[in-house]
């Protein structure tokens, strides 16, 4: 049962979820018809066997109190969005009760509640009316909304011509200006550019300063930790952990790392292929030397997919050279998933001259302690001649691995420099003479 109450008692939770379960029917095809219903009259048994159910939520209970910011994390398909849709009143719980005290604005999907043929301005009125605002109330906020959305002269253009970023800006601008008691945000902010995301974050802080309550679903764990007071890790239809953000995020990441680790050995064992598994569009070169296999191993030589910050790593490159090749150079590269090229060492840069290659063999690049922070990375490998005029074989970003946080608590940026902090106990300006001189120069 879903209940909305506009006049809550003081001190009551904004959201009160009690023993809520949700069942979806898994259907073979789209929609239903009398024909199906008629057939099912005669095939009762088959129907009950063929129709299966799936519970994205089972007996979930939690409360959100005024002015709280709750983050919800979990893998794709874990039911987070279903939960949010139920909070918004779009889906009805199969069992249990959801009580929402106060006015909701929900930003669940890109462009939801917009009509493509209407202009941005008209859509502000349409969208505002979907939040239950009157025309006067919308008109009073119109200028603020247009200014916040940064749409400028595009505001009088039909929004079917908008980019997805513009949709988000308009959608968020309306949602935040409706003065909701509760703001539900599902991931959509990721679409905006960095400047607009910052603006949204400021608006969310401002919204909370005024006493607003926030529920945020995101895969961006950094944002979740920065914004939320409390985090729910939601998976397999149940709340796995709830509490202090850093703690819950850490538990979640470690869990993810463990689960990814499991299938890795089998994969490694089963993928000792005659042919390289690298897709052709990630591979080029003359193949006079072929890279036949690449393994990412820990210090014992066991292939792994998940490593921990600070752990050693070996990149083993297996090659085959049917004919003698003089003076080859082997190289590797590591990219972060967002495309940043982090490092690209090769044998030449390390001052090595390799012997002539003939037949099969391997080259190993040893990393004593990975300085990478939690995230997804890829390894590229290459072999070319010393002049770098002939590429024999290049596997571009073909070997993914993941870094789990492990014991390292650093979480800003991509790498740790392994530096240490000290707080000198002597006079506070122990190293200032130089600094003061610099300041004078600059000033």
């Amino acid at each position: 049962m879903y209940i909305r109450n506009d006049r809550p008692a003081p001190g009551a939770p904004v959201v009160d979820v009690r023993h809520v379960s949700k069942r979806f029917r898994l259907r073979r095809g789209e929609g239903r018809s009398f024909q199906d219903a008629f057939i099912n009259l005669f095939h009762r048994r088959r129907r009950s066997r063929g129709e299966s159910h799936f519970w994205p939520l089972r007996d979930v209970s939690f409360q959100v109190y005024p002015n709280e910011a709750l983050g919800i994390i979990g893998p794709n398909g874990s039911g987070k969005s279903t939960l949010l849709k139920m909070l918004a009143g779009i889906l009805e719980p199969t069992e249990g009760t959801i009580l929402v005290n106060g006015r909701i604005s929900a930003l669940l999907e890109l462009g939801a509640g917009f009509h493509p043929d209407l202009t941005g301005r008209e859509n502000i009125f349409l969208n505002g009316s979907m939040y239950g605002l009157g025309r006067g109330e919308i008109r009073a906020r119109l200028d603020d909304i247009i200014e916040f959305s940064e749409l400028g002269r595009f505001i009088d253009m039909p929004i079917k011509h908008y980019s997805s970023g513009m949709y988000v800006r308009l959608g968020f601008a309306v949602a935040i200006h409706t003065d909701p008691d509760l703001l539900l945000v599902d991931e959509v902010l990721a679409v905006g550019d960095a400047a607009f995301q910052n603006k949204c974050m400021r608006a969310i802080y401002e919204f909370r300063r005024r006493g607003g309550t926030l529920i945020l679903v995101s895969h961006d764990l950094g944002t979740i930790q920065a914004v939320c007071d409390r985090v729910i890790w939601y998976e397999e239809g149940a709340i796995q952990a709830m509490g202090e953000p850093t703690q819950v995020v850490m538990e979640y990441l470690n869990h993810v790392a463990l689960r990814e680790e499991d299938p890795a050995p089998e994969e490694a064992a089963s993928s000792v292929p005659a042919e390289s598994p690298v897709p052709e569009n990630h591979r080029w070169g003359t193949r006079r030397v072929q890279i036949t296999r690449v393994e990412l191993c820990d210090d014992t030589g066991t292939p792994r997919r998940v490593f921990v910050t600070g752990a050693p790593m070996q990149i083993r490159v297996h090659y085959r050279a049917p004919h003698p090749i003089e003076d080859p150079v082997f190289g590797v590269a590591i990219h972060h998933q967002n495309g940043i090229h982090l490092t690209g060492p090769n044998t030449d840069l390390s001052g090595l001259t390799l012997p002539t290659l003939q037949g099969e063999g391997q080259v190993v690049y040893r990393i004593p302690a990975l300085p990478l922070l939690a995230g997804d990375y890829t390894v590229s490998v290459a072999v070319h001649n010393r002049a770098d005029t002939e590429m024999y074989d290049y596997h571009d970003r073909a070997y993914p691995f993941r870094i789990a946080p492990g014991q390292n608590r650093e979480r800003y940026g991509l790498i740790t420099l392994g530096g240490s902090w000290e707080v000198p106990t002597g006079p506070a300006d122990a190293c200032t003479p130089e600094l003061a001189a610099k300041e004078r120069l600059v000033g």
Partner: protein
Amino acid sequence: MTSSAHAEPILTPPRRPWAPVHRLMELYRFRVLLYYLVVRELKGRYKSSVLGFLWTLLNPLLMMLVFTVVFTVILPNYAVPQYPIFLLCGLLPWNYFSASVIGSIHSVVGNANLVKKVYFPREILPIATVLAQLINFLLALLVLFALLLIFRMPLSPRWWMLPLVILLHTCFTIGLALILSAVNVYYRDTMMIMDVVIMAWFFLTPVFYPLDVLPRSYEVLGFSLNVHRLMYILNPMASLINTYRDLLYLGTYTEMDFFLRTAVTSLGVLALGYWIFVRLSPNFGEEV
């Protein structure tokens, strides 16, 4: 760690306003949305036609022309004086009704993107379709009034009942629209079936013929059926059109008890439709 550790008591169970009242209050709160959906529907209809909303006025006139030619020149069977007026008094209400019903069947399913992503009282969708048709109907009535003046028809002493009749007619139409739009979410065949049903209904309703052409009684298996009575009992549209004709065409009093019975039927259908819709609508979010 499970959630239930955090969940239990502390709280008083939620007090719930009486459900139907709460639901109606919610509908009122979203009246602006209703307004925009009606505007959207009206704008969309004439978007790329040259004459635009003039069609609202032209369409009944042209249909009147067709029916008048057919039933006074080709098949001159009924001696109905001022047939064009007689016809329009039935045809305009009928068009309002049938266009609303056909249009609203698709209203929930056709707005799946809204229903799946935004919360609002879903009954707004079929109601908006009917209200957009109501506005068309009112404009078309202006044409009828102009013709009444041209044909110098007498005005009924109970002309003030006309808004009431329109209101009841609208209630009946919304009731049916609510039922059909909700059922269509679960069974998409509703649309196909209703296409045929509406056509049959049109011929079974005295729109282009007077009720008097039907036999008063009809023998079925030895039972004598009062066709006129049955028509009014089984077909609220016949009663409504009959009332429109009383007021606009005949210019007579309409019988009060007959009118009251029509009112009860219309409001009953509205209540039934609303009840069915409210029962079915919580699952729309996953069924559309």
